[in-house]
């Protein structure tokens, strides 16, 4: 396949268009700098745009993210590359970095697409929808999700049968199977790494039965079930579509657990689980919600009050890590744990179990750099060269880090961190002009 070669110049490159990357890009753009914002996903917005509400204020996550996303999308100083990846970054001098950007073909001309969804209707192929975390299916020709940006269709070429039905159905003829991978040579003055985090894959803990027991889901899946743009339009357990009555949260799944290689606290799981518990009590007033925890870490502003509020609403908090989950014939689940306050082994039956999975580093970032070394910390998050005084600085001058790429953190902290990274970047550009 022949690749087209282009060369472009920007003041700043922001890798990752989640809430941290987006915020950093906006700060730079508002100050007058030209920014290239790159994300490997088909939409900007990162993980936050998928969430239901945020803790501890219970504000709608989408209502905070989408205005920000549209501001980013319409900003004259910001260029967005979605479905694209950065590689081969070389530091040429103090104020010049070169990099390669690989733009994968979307097979849709975004500027012509009206998101009418006719291609979705025409497409005969169904696969699991990764943007709904596998709860439902989607087509191979699809709009990633309802509030995505850019709001345009994409063709999932790996699952496409090349039948051409979408092409024929498209009223604006924006589907183009001749698109090819573009490789672009990029020159920038500064770089902000905002690559975020990964969630622990509970398949690595077979004793919880995720993937085997249908009514064991992850908190991110529950997040989709209670989001305004949710797939089922109500809370259902995936096994048989029953409305669950007794819901359990298992905290510290893949965090604070050296046996699965991640000994550190994820900082967000306690609070997002408490948030979901409150939302579930609102959505299903008759349901019992139990949270099984090791310690509740409600350290942030308003967190303890939020925790007490959940207790007041009737959420059960049980101290004890879940050891094993087994499934009954009717799809209910038996959780085995030691009630630490009683010192006794107990078993409890629940309709549905939510695994509050921990935060893992987004690995491989250090491999992006060619002639410099980006140091990672002992847990493979991006290392901060001066954690206390300049938390956004990395081991490479001119490369800054924002958000959860440095370690587990919540949304307000990510935005703060993005603020720090963008001001550091601006001051770097000015100093090395």
């Amino acid at each position, binding site marked *: 396949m022949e690749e087209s070669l282009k060369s472009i110049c920007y003041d700043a490159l922001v890798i990752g268009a989640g809430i941290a990357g987006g915020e950093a890009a906006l700060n730079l753009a508002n100050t007058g700098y030209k920014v290239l914002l790159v994300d490997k996903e088909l939409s900007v917005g990162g993980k936050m745009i998928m969430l239901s509400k945020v803790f501890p204020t219970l504000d709608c996550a989408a209502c905070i993210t989408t205005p920000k996303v549209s501001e980013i999308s319409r900003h004259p100083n910001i260029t967005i590359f979605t479905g694209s990846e950065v590689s081969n970054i070389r530091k040429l001098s103090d104020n010049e970095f070169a990099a390669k950007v690989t733009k994968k073909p979307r097979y849709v001309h975004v500027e012509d697409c009206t998101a009418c969804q006719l291609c979705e209707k025409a497409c005969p192929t169904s696969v699991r929808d990764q943007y709904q975390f596998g709860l439902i299916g989607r087509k191979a020709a699809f709009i990633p999700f309802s509030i995505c940006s850019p709001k345009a269709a994409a063709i999932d070429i790996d699952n496409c049968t090349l039948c051409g039905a979408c092409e024929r159905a498209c009223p604006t003829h924006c589907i183009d199977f001749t698109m090819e991978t573009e490789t672009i040579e990029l020159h920038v003055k500064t770089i902000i790494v905002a690559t975020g985090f990964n969630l622990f894959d509970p398949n690595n803990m077979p004793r919880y039965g995720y993937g085997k027991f249908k009514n064991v889901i992850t908190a991110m899946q529950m997040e989709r079930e209670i989001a305004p743009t949710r797939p089922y339009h109500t809370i259902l357990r995936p096994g048989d579509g029953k409305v669950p009555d007794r819901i359990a949260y298992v905290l*510290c799944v893949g965090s604070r657990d050296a*046996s699965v290689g991640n000994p550190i606290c994820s900082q967000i799981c306690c609070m997002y689980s408490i948030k979901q518990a409150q939302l579930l009590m609102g959505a299903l007033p008759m349901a019992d919600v139990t949270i099984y925890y090791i310690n509740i870490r409600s350290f942030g502003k308003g967190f303890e009050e939020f925790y007490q509020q959940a207790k007041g609403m009737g959420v059960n908090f049980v101290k004890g890590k*879940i050891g094993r989950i087994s499934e009954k014939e009717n799809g209910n689940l038996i959780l*085995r744990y*030691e009630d630490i306050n009683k010192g006794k*082994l107990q078993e409890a039956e629940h309709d549905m179990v939510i695994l509050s999975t921990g935060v893992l580093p987004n690995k491989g970032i250090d491999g992006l750099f060619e002639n410099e070394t980006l140091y990672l910390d002992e847990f493979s998050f991006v290392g901060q060269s001066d954690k206390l005084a300049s938390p956004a600085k990395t081991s490479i001058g001119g490369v800054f880090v924002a958000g959860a790429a440095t370690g587990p953190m919540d949304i307000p902290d990510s935005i703060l961190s993005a603020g720090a990274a963008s001001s550091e970047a601006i001051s770097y550009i000015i100093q090395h002009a």
Partner: protein
Amino acid sequence: MAKINPSFGKELKKYGAINFNACYNCGNCTAVCSLSTEDVSFPREMVRVSTLGLEDEIQSSLKPWECYYCGECSTHCPQEANPGELMMSLRRYLTAKYDWTGLSGLMYKSLPLTISAFVLSLIGVLYFAFSVNFDLEKMVHWGHLFEMIAIGTVGFVILLPNVARMWWLTILKPGTKVPFKKYVSSIGELIVHMFTQKRALGCDDNQLRWFEHFIMVIGYLSLLFTTVFLNWFSSEYLIVTLFGYLVSTIVFVVTFDFVLSRIKKKKQISKHSQPSDWFFVIWLFLMGLSAFMVRLFIDLDLLESNKWLYLVHLTVLVQWALIIVPFGKWTHFLYRSFAMYFAKLKA
């Protein structure tokens, strides 16, 4: 009001405990343990009392014996606090506490002392052989006599009082009232657990481990019976001879596998071996093998020209009977089965 003793941890480390202070009390170990029940929950409780150093609670507890060490708790411990190995160390500690002579504790904690005892036994055997002018007939005769005397003495002077101490520490001292009738009606529990170790079948790992251990115990007891009561080495009966071959083979083949798995360290239970564990499995192996060889040499008429072989066997036997049986790991045979008996009494 219990008084805590944080320095107890140092004492327990001498018995092989590793990193148990890292425990953050999540209870995962208790929850993954397939032997743990609502009424008898462990191992976290034992980790907790060990961290606090509540020696009275540990000494009155039967829980260390109710664990059959599948290692699941250590595999899944989020803090890598190794609760399985703590339970193992508590069993060593309790063995030391039950022993009225105090020698068990000294040998568990000091390898040089243990080695000295082994060397001393070797010297004793050589001295004895020298004093009978290496006369094979005399050596075999006295060797056989030694076995009978050793069994009686060790049993009545060391093991019986120790089991009585265990009874005192776990039943009498904590003030458990048990009617005499219950002592009689529960006796079956003791016999069943002593000869079948059936509780290990409840462990989560594969049951090959139980089977291996089971045939090893049967093989060992039969070998003891054959050599001591049927006088295998001097027996004229073909059936006794063949039976001896069979059971000694079982002993050394199975223990060879035990030694191998402790070398390979693949399974959780064989990852951490204390000297007492090595001595136990290796001497059991040597005993089975040397007994087999001695009888083979007798049948091939080679023993007269290879007296050293009998001396090797006798040395292994003496070390086994005077060190490992009364003061080493052998005692778990008694304590485990009595623990199940006492647990039944307490229930």
